[in-house]
């Protein structure tokens, strides 16, 4: 796979399509699996890791769907390319930063990725746009079944699929949705929502930023427990609660508009103006302004830009993307200028192009 060819594109999970895509950016499911006849990755020496990688690589690239897969040897990649894959959500930060034989198979549309020799021998991930957990599950289940036809995964009747970390044992499943919740953050209602989620054992992670509003109001909600419940029960646990959060966010947005439409419209228009005209801009500020613009589009206060364009900019304005785009390593100050230049150009191109 030529990573440079990806610079101009985005993964299908950023298309802004699918149910409730105004608030649910994407849905994701991953499964952790280990081969029964090898020690876990942290306990395997380089020779064994090499053997695990080549065995799993052959299996993964032999899958019926593999004609659309590209395999990347993560160990051989430049540091900037690894970071690029992290920004695109195709590999984890841990996979980028560790050492030794490891790789990843990625589908054309970037909705499937299979990491080899991450914390577990195999981490299968499916990502889709909008609220689409059933879609993710059907696809990942199919891949898992196909692999299981020729591989023996470590499994016990009592504890299920055995993983390197006891927090993943059982189903080995992590079900998550990426939510955009600007109105709940603005009104500080978000803490109530988080408290309610923790009581039912769901974890909240800020994906692009810190726990507060500084970094774009994007939050990842996922299951914490993996043992003692079936995959379907864990998926349903999220499916039951997510519509409530969506409703809550919509309700608060409506109230904001009703209470002070003029002020909100002004804030959003200013954010849009800054993104179109700034000469230098940090990634924090970019996230924050893009979050305002994204809400503005959903509230029909901005009518000449689409959600997919904003989703794309969230990823493409990150450091490794910019450096690959300009094809040179950039210092923070240079990056902030490059980011502003890229935003001016892309927004000019995509304005008026309705999605």
């Amino acid at each position, binding site marked *: 796979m030529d990573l440079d060819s990806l610079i101009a594109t985005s993964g299908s999970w950023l298309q802004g399509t699918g149910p409730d895509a105004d608030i649910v950016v994407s849905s994701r499911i991953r499964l952790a699996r280990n081969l029964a006849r090898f020690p876990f990755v942290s306990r395997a020496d380089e020779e064994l890791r090499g053997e695990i990688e080549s065995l799993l690589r052959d299996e993964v690239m032999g899958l019926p769907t593999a004609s659309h897969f590209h395999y990347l040897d993560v160990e051989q990649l430049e540091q900037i390319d690894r970071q690029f894959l992290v920004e695109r959500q195709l590999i984890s930060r841990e996979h980028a930063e560790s050492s030794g034989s490891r790789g990843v198979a990625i589908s054309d549309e970037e909705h499937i990725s299979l990491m080899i020799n991450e914390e577990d021998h195999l981490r299968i991930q499916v990502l889709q746009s909008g609220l689409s957990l059933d879609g993710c599950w059907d696809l990942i289940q199919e891949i898992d079944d196909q692999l299981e036809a020729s591989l023996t995964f470590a499994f*016990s009747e009592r504890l299920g699929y055995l993983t390197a970390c006891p927090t993943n044992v059982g189903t080995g499943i992590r079900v998550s949705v990426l939510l955009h919740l600007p109105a709940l953050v603005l009104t500080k209602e978000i803490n109530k929502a988080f408290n309610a989620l923790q009581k039912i054992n769901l974890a909240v992670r800020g994906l692009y930023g810190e726990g507060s509003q500084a970094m774009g109001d994007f939050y990842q909600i996922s299951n914490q427990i993996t043992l003692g419940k079936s995959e379907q029960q864990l998926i349903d646990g999220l499916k039951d609660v997510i519509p409530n959060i969506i409703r809550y966010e919509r309700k608060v947005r409506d109230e904001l508009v009703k209470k002070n439409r003029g002020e909100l419209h002004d804030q959003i228009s200013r954010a849009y103006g800054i993104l179109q005209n700034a000469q230098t801009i940090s990634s924090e500020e970019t996230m924050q302004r893009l979050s305002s613009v994204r809400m503005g589009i959903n509230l029909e206060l901005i009518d000449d830009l689409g959600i997919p364009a904003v989703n794309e900019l969230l990823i493409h304005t990150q450091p490794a993307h910019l450096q690959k785009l300009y094809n040179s390593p950039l210092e923070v100050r240079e990056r902030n200028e490059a980011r502003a230049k890229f935003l001016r150009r892309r927004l000019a191109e995509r304005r008026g192009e309705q999605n």
Partner: protein
Amino acid sequence: MKKCRRCSKPATLHITEMREEEVHELHLCETCYQEYLDYSETPEGPLESDPSPEIAIELSGDQTLEELDQTACPNCGISFREFRSQGRLGCPHDYTEFENELLPLLENIHGETQHCGKLPTQAADSSRQQYELIKLRKDLHQAVAAEEYEAAAQLRDAIVTLESDLGLTEHQDLD
């Protein structure tokens, strides 16, 4: 398993911060998260990365923690002490070897200790038979290192026999 960075409760909130485009990870419990939110307007400078979390273990019987720490898995060789400091197990057999210690821990994390999700198409027995290969290969490694060539040859034969019994050799034939 992560513990809260500021106290010892389990961390339920996992925060990724980006400041000056540096990434920091922070793991907090609910109470500390509230405090964190109150202070997040005024950043307190870059946070250190997570110190390696130690696993808290409830001791059963008369075994001391020191004795327990010395126990090692015969398959992969990991000691309980190593597991406690890294939070990662060494091989699938560790779940059997350290079962008494792990069950209360799993109960704490998941609230349950019985899997009721997907079952693999192959029986768990065939999974367990394969663990034996981990031990044989570790022993082979040690025999070679100790220049015990006779033992090494025997172990190599045992591996080949077991692999062929388990039907694992066909992949090599395909090449």
